[in-house]
């Protein structure tokens, strides 16, 4: 049995949040009663912190002798005797029990020459700082030669872990109780079952309670109790599945059938889970594609300009994020948020430079534009290699974006991907609004449809060109900021996305933002669906070939522009 790593604050917060949601239907039909529960819980916690020291002192006065006896029982050579002694400690209800057991597990519970039990706070080096196991009094440093360790073996280690779990069930901290309930799954034995039932009744936290019920049910299932199946139904925890599988060998046919049926339903749910997970990863990949392609949809689709340096504008956005984090050390989150406008600005300025410096001279010659901007992409890549480094840079993911949201025992969705997905949708919505609702959007559409006419109506077409290109490039910068959270930030970042981006735009139908959204998301999902079946590289090849064939069938993409204007 392994300890799960300490969850970070973000994850705990997230858990707490979803726990609150879980328990809501039970507790509160109205907001008022929900509040009352909160107040009560607060009072309970406050009360505990005030009363705990007092009761500890009382216990100390009364039970020191008994405690010494409990520990004495550990100092025997027989491991089975030690096991009984551990049981005794657990049953003693001594408030210090958890610390003793933990120290014993870590090999820090020691006995001095004069028979006193001490706990080493740090057992590295020769001199160990120790404190008295009974009084908690600091005893300064002691040489490890003067100490004798209470030894344990692997069987005892396992026993200790579940023992600690049980002890933790009484802890005031809900996080500790949760972790302990988690550990108890599949570890409940006959001795634990009785006390556990009592604990379940008293447990205020619904999630802990549910876990404990499952833990107990696994034991009951092993004992052949048919009703336990109902308590385990719907749980996707791997240990529950292990328990069911074990029961399949049982002699009781009803139990076997029940277990089989439960397993089937679990399998069904897992299938749904996997589908949801594939969909999530697909949408996540799709959102990246959409972000990378949407800027292109503007410059290529709306202006008809082929910008092969688009990928490098994405790269600039990613490097801007990195640079912001260098400027604001220790505040990766703030840097990331500031990088959004900064990345937009940097890429937009670079875009304006490209438009003014090169593209304006190549108007109406799309193939030459393609070549020239490809040259620019080479220069930008090499510039980054020379000025910054040919190696990948690390961009830190802020705490509020790391971790994941656990939907159930078998499915958790990583937070950074979710944030990027949301970000992509926001950027998309903003762009649609800009094109539909603003003066700039109107002018862009006018210039696209009939440049000469637009000019004669007083629209400054050159200015519109610059602004459109800046907008498309800026969005590429935003894509870079988002990508810095998902992939390595290096000089080749942009190169990896340029072909995909063009594919998305062409697939969706040039000049159509919605087409880009649909194409990006669906290509992402298709890719993920194919991946387990064909492998990552093959999936990509299949998608590429699919698009190549698709364009033959519908040269104007999913959502073509129709009519005479499109022919021109």
């Amino acid at each position, binding site marked *: 049995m392994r300890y799960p790593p300490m969850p970070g604050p973000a994850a705990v917060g997230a858990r707490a949040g979803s726990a609150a949601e879980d328990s809501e239907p039970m507790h509160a039909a109205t907001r008022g009663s929900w509040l009352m529960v909160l107040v009560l819980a607060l009072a309970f916690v406050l009360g505990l912190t005030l009363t705990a020291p007092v009761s500890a002192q009382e216990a100390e006065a009364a039970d020191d002798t008994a405690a010494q006896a409990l520990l004495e029982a550990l100092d025997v050579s027989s491991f089975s005797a030690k096991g009984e002694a551990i049981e005794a400690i657990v049953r003693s209800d001594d408030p210090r029990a958890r610390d003793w057991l933990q120290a014993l597990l870590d090999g820090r519970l020691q006995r001095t020459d004069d028979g006193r039990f001490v706990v080493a706070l740090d057992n590295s080096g020769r001199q160990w700082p120790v404190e008295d196991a009974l009084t908690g009094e600091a005893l300064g440093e002691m040489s490890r030669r003067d100490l004798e360790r209470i030894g344990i073996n692997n069987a005892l280690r396992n026993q200790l872990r579940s023992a600690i779990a049980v002890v933790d069930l009484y802890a005031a901290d809900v996080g500790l109780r949760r972790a302990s309930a988690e550990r108890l799954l599949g570890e409940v034995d006959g001795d634990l079952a009785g006390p556990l039932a009592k604990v379940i009744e008293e447990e205020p936290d619904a999630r802990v309670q549910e876990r404990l019920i499952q833990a107990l049910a696994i034991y009951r299932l092993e004992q052949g109790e048919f009703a336990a199946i109902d308590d385990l139904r719907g749980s996707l925890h791997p240990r529950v599945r292990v328990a069911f599988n074990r029961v399949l060998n049982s002699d009781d046919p009803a139990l076997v059938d029940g277990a089989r049926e439960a397993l089937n339903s679990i399998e069904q749910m897992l299938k749904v889970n996997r589908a949801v997970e594939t969909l999530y990863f697909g949408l996540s990949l799709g959102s990246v594609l959409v972000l990378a392609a949407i800027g292109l949809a503007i410059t290529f689709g709306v202006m008809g300009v*082929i910008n092969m340096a688009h990928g490098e504008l994405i790269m600039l956005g990613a490097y801007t994020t990195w640079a912001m984090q260098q400027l604001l050390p220790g505040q990766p989150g703030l840097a990331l948020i500031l990088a959004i406008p900064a990345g937009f600005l940097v890429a937009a300025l670079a875009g304006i430079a490209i438009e003014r410096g*090169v593209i304006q*001279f*190549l*108007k*109406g*010659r*799309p*193939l*030459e*534009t*393609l*070549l*020239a901007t*490809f*040259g*620019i*992409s*080479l*220069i930008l*890549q*090499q*510039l980054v*290699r*020379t000025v910054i480094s040919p190696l990948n840079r690390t961009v830190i993911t802020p705490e509020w974006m790391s971790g994941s949201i656990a939907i159930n025992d078998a499915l958790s969705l990583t937070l950074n991907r979710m944030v990027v997905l949301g970000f992509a949708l926001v950027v998309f919505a903003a762009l649609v609004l800009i094109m539909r609702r603003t003066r700039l959007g109107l002018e862009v559409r006018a210039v696209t449809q009939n440049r000469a006419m637009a000019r004669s109506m007083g629209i400054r077409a050159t200015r519109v060109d610059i602004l459109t290109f800046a907008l498309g490039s800026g969005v590429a910068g935003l894509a870079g900021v988002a990508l810095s959270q998902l992939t390595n930030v290096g000089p080749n970042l942009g190169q990896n996305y340029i*072909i995909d981006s*063009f*594919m998305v735009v*062409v697939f969706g139908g040039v000049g159509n933002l919605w087409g880009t959204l649909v194409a990006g998301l669906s290509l992402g999902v298709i890719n993920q669906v194919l991946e387990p079946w064909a492998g990552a*590289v*093959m999936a*990509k*090849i299949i998608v*590429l*070939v699919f*698009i*190549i*064939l698709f*364009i*033959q*069938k519908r*040269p104007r993409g999913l959502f073509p522009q129709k009519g005479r204007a499109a022919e021109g």
Partner: protein
Amino acid sequence: MQSRSWLMRPFGERSTLIFLAVLLAAMALVTLMHLAVPPGHSLHVSAYTVNLFGKYLSYALLAVAVDLVWGYLGILSLGHGAFFAMGGYAMGMYLMRQIGDRGVYGHPVLPDFMVFLNWDSLPWYWHGFDMAGFAFLMVLLAPGALALIFGFLAFRSRVTGVYLSIITQALTFALMLAFFRNEMGFGGNNGLTDFREILGFNLRSSETRLGLFLASGVALAVGYLLCRAIVTSKLGRVCVATRDAEARTRFLGYRVERFQLFVFVVSAMLAGLAGALYVPQVGIINPSEFSPLFSIEIVLWVALGGRATLYGAVIGAILVNYAKTVFTGVMPDAWLFALGGLFVLVTVFLPRGVAGLLSLRLRRRRDADASFSAKEASA
């Protein structure tokens, strides 16, 4: 002016005769300076340099193939590296089979990488490549077949312009990913290498290198003549007509997609031939030849030399690759800057390339060469 047979027509052109004369003179000079001038003398051309020149000549043939479709048909293929690489792989497969049981693992039939992957027999598509004739045929047929299928689909549905460029790029990208896979049976990442001999000649000997150089020169001359014959025929004029006004050409009764397909396939085969000459000279073929970067670089050679001239493509290929050799030797970091800068400078300031500069000097009023659309140059 058009009474000769189409194949003989290029010999009546001054530009073609000059080109052939320069090419043959260069080949003779290099041969002479390699064989007759003793090593150590400042005029001696080493086997290494001969090899390098041979590589340039195979690149030049590739550039001619690209110019045929881009210059005269208006199809900017960003995937010609794929045809080049396929020809190269066909040649590489022949060279691999020539190794026989002298590989590291000493297997009589299987190339080393297959033994390494624990394969117990040759995949079906490797059969026949032990025969030179079959392999050399495949050098032309494999890229030709790919071009035929791809072109048939693309031209039939009238995918043109930028769209075509983008999907040709996607094509070569997809092939690169595919060839990176070990399961494809082409040596994966490492490609095919450790060749020993070609047609019984040791690949490492300087005589073989000279022979390959001369073969590349001859292939370039033949390829050039073939392309010239095509572009000076009525079919060539149909191509130019298609390039400048596709719809008009259709309304005249020409099945534009078939002309496009014909020229595209011819061009792909020439590219395959170039790849087949390239591989024995560099001693390796791996999936990086499929990379979109390489394909787009070929286009730069043509653009720099001057499109729709054919000899411009040759000049461009040699100039850029010579510059690449020099730069990567002296200051490797600067090469990509130079290459990128070239892309921008050529397209913005030199739309007719070096050939455009030349023809300003040697301006002949009326030459099919200078058929660069006035509209395109000025727009």
